[in-house]
């Protein structure tokens, strides 16, 4: 069962970048798909260039993140998606907690780009 988010992000003509922050000292890895086409994956996705706002208009960005409970001090998990280059820089976040030590959670977030 995944923790999900479905929302939109308003863009201009400028280039848009994405940073994924996995919080609470936990370790995770993400796959980034634009209209089902895999763009990148990995643990560290910082200022990843998604393309110009014009090219993104109407497309859906899906980010699937598997977070493992590597932090022995907490079972909390947070994933923050930072978008830059759109109408306004914007953060979106998802939070959850695993039931027991060492478990993992899947965070599944989808963003539709709208050019304004």
């Amino acid at each position: 069962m995944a923790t999900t988010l479905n929302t939109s992000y308003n863009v201009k003509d400028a280039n848009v970048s994405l940073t994924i922050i996995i919080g609470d000292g936990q370790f995770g890895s993400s796959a980034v798909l634009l209209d089902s086409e895999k763009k990148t994956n990995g643990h560290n996705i910082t200022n990843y260039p998604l393309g110009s706002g014009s090219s993104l208009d109407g497309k859906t960005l899906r980010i699937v993140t598997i977070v493992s409970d590597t932090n022995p001090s907490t079972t909390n998990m947070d994933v923050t998606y930072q978008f830059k280059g759109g109408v306004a820089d914007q953060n979106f976040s998802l939070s959850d907690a695993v039931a027991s030590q060492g478990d993992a959670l899947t965070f599944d977030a989808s963003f539709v780009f709208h050019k304004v």
Partner: protein
Amino acid sequence: MNNERNKLLGLLLAILLAGISENTVGQSAGRASNGVGDTLDAFRTPTSPAFVLFGIEPTSVERPTTPRAVAVSLLSSGLANGVIPNNYAIEFSPYWLTSHPDLTYDKYVNATADEQLIQSLSISFATSKSQSAPDSGTDMGAGLRFQVSPPGKSSKLPKLEQDLENVSNAMLDHLGDKKALDSLESKRKDLTLQMQNEQKNRGVVLEFAAALAGHFPQNDLNNGRITHTGLWLTLSYKPEGTMLEFLGVGRLLWNNGVGGDGNYLDAGARVLYENDPILVSGEFVERTVYNTTIAQQSSNTTIGVITFSSTYRASLLIDYKIDNNTSLEYSFGHNFTQVTGINNLISQLGIKFGFGG
């Protein structure tokens, strides 16, 4: 074959040690019975200092993980309404009661000493119906604990991180394939637990704990007094790639005239060598027993007198693991004099059995 050889070696060692021991097998039970002849481990920084100072092991300890859960626990205990509960124990880490969305894995494993202090701080609190006093009072204890170590992480972590990233990426590539995901999940969990364990291996670790315990006759908060104070300091160092571990321990225990134990200042050190199936440990603990008394010298002169006496414990321990559930343990040395009187020789042979699992 190897198992049989280990059992035979263990038996031979048992016979050899039994020959030079003054005690017989099975007498080691007296070692920890009075709480004073314990090995150095007894003086290490306790996980829950409030409970240790009390000398209690609560059957049920509440460990809330959110501020709301802390509030609910305190309210249901009655403490928030000024009622002292008879048997109540709570332990929590303030830092981890809330989420930390900006605390990435890399920041966490490379935390500075002050960040570690805040992250590792835990608070324990317990109440218990008084066992020793003639009234129907309650004992209460509160303690805190934290640890710090130099910034940096175990050299094994980068490989584990890479492996976990690879497994996670493989899972992301097979999101709709339940069979493949099930197969990868066991690897993922194994790596995750290894990383949890490896994060505790930071080389030099300094642990500190402090606790206060008090007695409240007739459950009256205004009529209580502090009965025990404890301070613990543990410094441990396990060099990577070696089978050695070094441990330094300091403990200050003030009993405020309660009980016959007096006040202790313990300082000790241990060197441990572990090369399966043999474990050899040498330790030394210096104990200063001190007592303070107030004497009226004349009508307008009062003097305070502090008396000190000291003793030590030095011992060598050899532990031979016969199999996963059985080990043979022999210790030899000098125990604290005031506890054992003239007979302060330690010479004990014991067999430890593990059950289950």
